[in-house]
C-alpha cells in the first residue's frame, strides 16, 4: 500500500514522516509522469495554494489528479490542500480542483500574528491538538458533507465521500490520529 503526497511546494515531508511512522510507504508527486505510479491514497499538504494550484496546471497534472479524485481516490487535504479541493473560495476568484462541495475563506484568521494552537474535539477521534498557520476555515458546506470539527463555531474539518479536508496541520503535532483515520479510508 502506497500513499502519494503532492510534493510541488510546502510541508510535504512532514506528512511523509508521519505516514512512514505508521508503516506506510509514500510516493512524491512532482510532475505529470508521477501520476502514473501506483498509489491508493493522496495527501495534499500545507503550503501556498496559489503556488501549488499554478504548478498543477503548468506541469500538466491538474486534469489527471482531478479525475483520480472524482473517481474515488481517498484524499487527506490540510490547509492549502483544503483550498485546492474546495468548490468555492469566498475571498478569492481562483478555483482549483473543486471536488469538495464547500466554500472556504483563505487566510481567514489573518496574517501570521493570527496563527494559533488549540485543542478541540474531532468526530471519532476525541480531542486532538490543532495547529492553525495563516489558516482557512470552511464557511459553508454542501449536501453530503459531514462536519468533523469546529473551533469557536468555525468549521475546521470536513469529510465528503473519500475526501478529508482540514484547516489545520495534524502532520505538525506528532499526534497520528487524523492520519490513522485517513488510512482507514483507503
Amino acid at each position, binding site marked *: 500500500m502506497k500513499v502519494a503526497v503532492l510534493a510541488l511546494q*510546502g*510541508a510535504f515531508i*512532514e506528512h511523509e514522516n508521519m505516514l512512514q511512522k505508521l508503516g506506510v510507504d509514500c510516493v512524491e508527486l*512532482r510532475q505529470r509522469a508521477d501520476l502514473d505510479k501506483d498509489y491508493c491514497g493522496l495527501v495534499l499538504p500545507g*503550503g501556498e495554494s496559489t503556488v501549488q494550484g499554478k504548478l498543477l496546471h503548468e506541469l500538466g497534472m491538474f486534469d489527471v489528479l482531478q479525475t483520480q479524485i472524482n473517481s474515488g481516490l481517498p484524499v487527506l487535504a490540510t490547509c492549502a490542500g483544503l483550498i485546492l479541493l474546495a468548490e468555492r473560495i469566498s475571498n478569492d476568484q481562483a478555483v482549483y480542483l473543486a471536488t469538495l462541495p464547500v466554500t472556504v475563506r483563505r487566510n481567514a484568521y489573518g496574517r*501570521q500574528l493570527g496563527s494559533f494552537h488549540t485543542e478541540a474535539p474531532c468526530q471519532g477521534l476525541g480531542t486532538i491538538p490543532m*495547529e492553525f*498557520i495563516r489558516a482557512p476555515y470552511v464557511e459553508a458546506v454542501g449536501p453530503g458533507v459531514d462536519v468533523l470539527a469546529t473551533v469557536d463555531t468555525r468549521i475546521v474539518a470536513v469529510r465528503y465521500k473519500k475526501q478529508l479536508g482540514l484547516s489545520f496541520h495534524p502532520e505538525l503535532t506528532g499526534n497520528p490520529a487524523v492520519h490513522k483515520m485517513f488510512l482507514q479510508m483507503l
Partner: protein
Amino acid sequence: MEQKRYELNKELAQMLKGGVIMDVTTPEQARIAEAAGACAVMALERIPADIRAAGGVSRMSDPAMIKGIQAAVSIPVMAKCRIGHFVEAQILEAIDIDYIDESEVLSPADDVYHIDKTRFRVPFVCGARDLGEALRRIDEGASMIRTKGEPGTGDIVQAVHHMRMMNRAIANIRAMRTDELFDEAKRLQVSYTLVQYVHEHGRLPVVNFAAGGVATPADAALMMQLGAEGVFVGSGIFKSGNPEKRANAIVKAVSNFNDAQMIASLFENLGEAMVGINAQEIELLMAERGK
C-alpha cells in the same frame, strides 16, 4: 515570546519550503511575483543590486509602501529591518508583517548585538554564513535561517560556500561523541542544547533557505541539491530581461530540482540574466555584517 508562538513561527517557515521568496519593491512587482508562483514576497525599497549601486545608509522601508504590498497579494509578506534595530522590528510587527528579515543587506544599526528576537511575537529569518552564526541567531529567537550569499551580485559562489560550510559542520557534529559536544558548543559560542539537537537530528532545528546571488533556474536547483529547503531571489528577477518568465522558471526549477530535462527546457530563451558582479570585485561585502 511563549514557546507555542515560537513553534507556530517555525511552522510558517515549514509551509514556505520548496518555494521561492522574491524581493519586490512595488505592489505591481508583488502581483507579478505572486502570479509567477512566489510562496512569499520580501517588500523592500530597493533591491540589493540598487542598494549596492546607490551606496549610503540603507534602512527599513516606508511602512506605507509595505502596506501597499500587503494589500496587493494574498501570500505572506516579509520585510527587512537593520541588524540590531529593534525599533524597526517593533514597527514591522505593529503593521502585522508575516516575517521580519533582520538583514545584512541593510546597513547595520548595531555593530555588536543582534535583536533579542525572543521578545517578539512575529517571526524572524536571519542570514548565516556557517553553523555557528545560524545557531547564534536561533539562540536569539530566529525561527528560520538563510545563507547570506553576497546579495545583489548575481554571483552564486558565496551562497554555495556558506551552504557547504554549514553542511560540513553539521556532519561533523553528527559524528562527534556526546562528550565532545560541550566543547563544540563553547567553540561555536552557542547553547549546548542546540548543539545536542544538531547531533541528534543532523540538521538545523529550523528551516534553512538559500539566499544571495541566485540568478538562474540552474542556480536555484543547485542550492536545492546542496540541501537548501527553498530559495530567496532578490535582484535576480527584477534586474533581468524578462522578470515574469524568469520567476516562473525559477519556481518550477525549485519544485523539480532533480530533473535536468525539465530545467533544460525552463532555461530556453529566458532572456538576459542580471548582469553579475564577481564577489571579489566588490568593495562592500554584506555577508561580513553581523556575525
